[in-house]
């Protein structure tokens, strides 16, 4: 069967792979423009770059109040999310150092999406390290479908989510991989036992925008079932959360029967 045309551009940024898929032909400027968005944010916010502003702040060479407007705005954004998630999402590591990686990748994805729109691209799928933002549809009008990695076997897919205008963004957080920006609520204080409900090993969230999806996936992974319930009361979401015992908590989009 002949497939309608998809064009793809894959590159490395923020220590992970970024994959841009466009239905039809890729606008000529799109690859460079999207890469520039990621590199610009990475240059400023990477804690792996000795010369970055984030590194200067983390080392206290640069006081936060003297940092750039963009840095302070990212800080404020992260702090707001911490409040909205009642502390489950954090912009600080347990040692107190500032770590904005939890919002920067999502910010890059969102901005890249705006860039794509400005270039006239309306049907695309952008995946940065497993966080996915979609726009429009696949060739032929089929919706974008995002697979979700099986937490017990990363070579296979656990489930899938069909994006639509209400839920164009899908993000996943898990404990099995790079977990430096995921800290369980109470872990640093040693009072994790006071929390009720299930703790999860992988959380996938579909939301109206990638920042919400990404932050809440991280927050729910950190805060467990309590945070999941909190999030579902505040935002329109579809969620599937895997616990360590092989069970799931899932909203209707991820269930075969309701």
């Amino acid at each position, binding site marked *: 069967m002949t*497939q309608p045309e998809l064009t793809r551009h*894959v590159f*490395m940024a923020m220590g*992970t*792979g970024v*994959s841009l*898929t466009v239905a039809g032909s890729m606008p000529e400027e799109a690859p460079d423009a999207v890469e520039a968005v990621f590199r610009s944010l990475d240059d400023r916010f990477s804690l792996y770059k000795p010369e970055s502003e984030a590194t200067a702040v983390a080392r206290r060479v640069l*006081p936060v*109040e003297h940092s750039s407007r963009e840095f*302070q*705005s990212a800080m404020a*954004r992260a*702090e*707001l*999310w911490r409040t909205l998630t009642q502390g489950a999402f954090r*912009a*600080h590591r347990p040692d*107190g*150092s*500032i770590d904005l990686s939890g919002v920067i990748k999502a910010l890059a994805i*969102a901005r890249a999406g705006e860039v794509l729109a400005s270039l006239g691209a309306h049907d695309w799928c952008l*995946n940065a390290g*497993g966080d*996915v933002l979609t726009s429009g549809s696949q060739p032929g009008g089929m919706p974008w*479908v*995002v*697979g979700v*990695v099986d937490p017990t076997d*990363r070579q296979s*897919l*656990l489930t*899938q*989510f069909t994006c639509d205008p209400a839920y164009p963004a899908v*993000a*996943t*957080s898990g404990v*099995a*991989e*790079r977990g430096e920006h995921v800290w369980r609520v109470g872990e640093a204080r040693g009072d994790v036992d006071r929390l009720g409900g299930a703790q999860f090993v*992988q959380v*996938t969230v579909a939301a*109206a925008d990638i920042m*919400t999806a990404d*932050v809440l996936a991280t927050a729910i992974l950190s805060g467990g079932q309590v945070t999941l319930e909190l999030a*579902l*009361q505040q*935002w*329109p*979401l*579809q*969620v599937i959360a895997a616990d360590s015992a092989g*069970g*799931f*908590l*899932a*909203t209707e*989009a*991820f*269930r*075969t029967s309701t």
Partner: protein
Amino acid sequence: MSTKRNSAAALASIGILATGWSIGTAHGQTLTKTASGATGSGTTTAPGSSAGTKAGANSGTGAGSSSGTAAGSSSGAAAGTTTAGSATYVGTRQSDRWGSLQVTVTVTNGKITNVTYTSTAGDGKSRSIEARATPTLKSEVVAANSAQVSSVSGATYTSAKYLTSLQSALDQIR
């Protein structure tokens, strides 16, 4: 030891709030500076903080933010109040088809001391959108159809090779 840094973070946040920068897109709401309506003491003199200074310098610019374009936003002229050492900033009420939300931030001595918000659910239809997460067996989870999948969501990949490889595998399936 983290307290000190958190304070610095809070202070930075206030700087942003006070300068009218639009913060966040949580559920579509946008926080905007509302210090222009400083009532009470009459002058914004949050002790020693950049918040007071910036709020004064930018007084009256809050309403110009893009948040004003949100559909149904009704109370853009939210007032900020300042009392000795303490200020309250009320974000514009942001509405969408699921309801509305308004955030209030209290600043005391240059630090965020409280953030509250009020939200209202929309019509009955919006309430039905609210999802319930229920215990689900793996056999009850929607199965992935690899032939349909365009892209894969997973925890951040340690290796870009993995992502690239997975993508190429998907390309082959398609």
